[in-house]
């Protein structure tokens, strides 16, 4: 069986997805029933995430720490020259991204925000999506929010984008005609081809995914799910991803940040 067919077979086995019965619209998970996918991991994988001397994501964080204090661009400045000690200046920053950017009139996710500061303030070329450098800096910045509650900004300008994200999450798409919500709101906790379907909370990003054997962004994770649904994934940086990221953060409001998370 190819991965794609195995995925399809596994999905067909999900009771609510198969057959002609149209499931009722996904019900959002009550706030007090939310859980991180961390909870469903094996003891070994939890231990890997918990121990900073064995979590491979920390290697990326250390690269990010080095980049933080390396001068770059026409400004000749490092991130540290302007922002000082990330431990205080970047605390909570990841927990409140995506945030509204008045210039573009849109939400920006943390990667975009870092690249914006890099271009505008540091006067250096932006890092490519999923580049080692961007993941490293994002992981370093996001780790300063570890243990902090996810805190989407209380900004009315974000409201329409949360709604777009929610609509995307609930829309059926791809050859399997599935929505994200069917798995992550309606069928979380069930087993799919040997994996527990998680609730899809973005609390650990960038994550060290064992599947990837590297750090990867939330957009990469969303791409993986879209491909699994046999939908055409958007290009990196697409507005749809940022809106979904915003919705996912809103959906996870109050949950603890765990960057760098480990996931199977």
């Amino acid at each position, binding site marked *: 069986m190819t991965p794609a067919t195995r995925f399809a077979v596994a999905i067909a086995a999900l009771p609510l997805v198969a057959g002609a019965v149209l499931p009722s619209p996904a019900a959002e998970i009550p706030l007090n029933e939310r859980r991180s996918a961390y909870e469903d991991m094996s003891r070994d994988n939890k231990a890997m995430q918990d121990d900073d*001397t*064995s979590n*491979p994501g*920390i*290697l990326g964080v*250390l*690269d990010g720490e*080095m980049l933080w204090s390396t001068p770059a661009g026409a400004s000749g400045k490092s991130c540290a020259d302007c922002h000082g000690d990330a431990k205080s200046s970047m605390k909570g920053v990841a927990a409140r991204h995506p945030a509204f950017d008045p210039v573009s009139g849109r939400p920006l996710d943390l990667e975009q925000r870092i690249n914006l500061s890099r271009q505008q303030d540091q006067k250096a070329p932006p890092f490519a999506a999923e580049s*080692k*450098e961007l993941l490293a800096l994002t992981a370093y910045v996001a780790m300063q929010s570890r243990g902090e509650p996810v805190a989407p900004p209380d900004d009315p300008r974000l409201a329409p984008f949360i709604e777009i994200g929610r609509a995307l999450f609930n829309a059926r798409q791809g050859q399997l005609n599935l929505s994200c919500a069917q798995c992550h709101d309606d069928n979380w906790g069930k087993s799919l081809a040997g994996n527990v379907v998680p609730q899809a909370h973005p609390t650990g990003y960038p994550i060290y995914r064992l599947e990837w*054997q*590297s750090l990867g962004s939330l957009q990469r994770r969303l791409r993986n799910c879209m491909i699994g649904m046999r939908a055409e994934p958007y290009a990196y940086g697409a507005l749809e991803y940022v809106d979904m990221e915003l919705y996912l953060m809103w959906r996870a409001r109050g949950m603890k940040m765990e960057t760098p998370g480990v996931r199977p």
Partner: protein
Amino acid sequence: MAARTLINVPPKAKRGEVIQIKTLISHVMENGFRHDNMGKPIARDIITTFTCAYNGEKIFEAALYPAISANPFITFYTVATESGTLAFQWTGDNGFSQEATAKITVE
């Protein structure tokens, strides 16, 4: 970026105490059995040996094969004998060589 290492050695130990040493290094460990999108085999690129010397004397060695996961993680034990330096070295394909050290004070 150069390979990143993460070494965990207790900074202080009692003489004779058995201490755990944890090591992590960034490396793709390309196993040599994969193909690129043109169907061309991707050459093997792995770390092949890891050694640890305690004040110059080799106390531990490992030979790694392609079945070791990316970003190799190895832990082992040693007896804290005297204050000094633990020197770690990883070598591998394509002339890969990386060193790291950690200090220990033994009382």
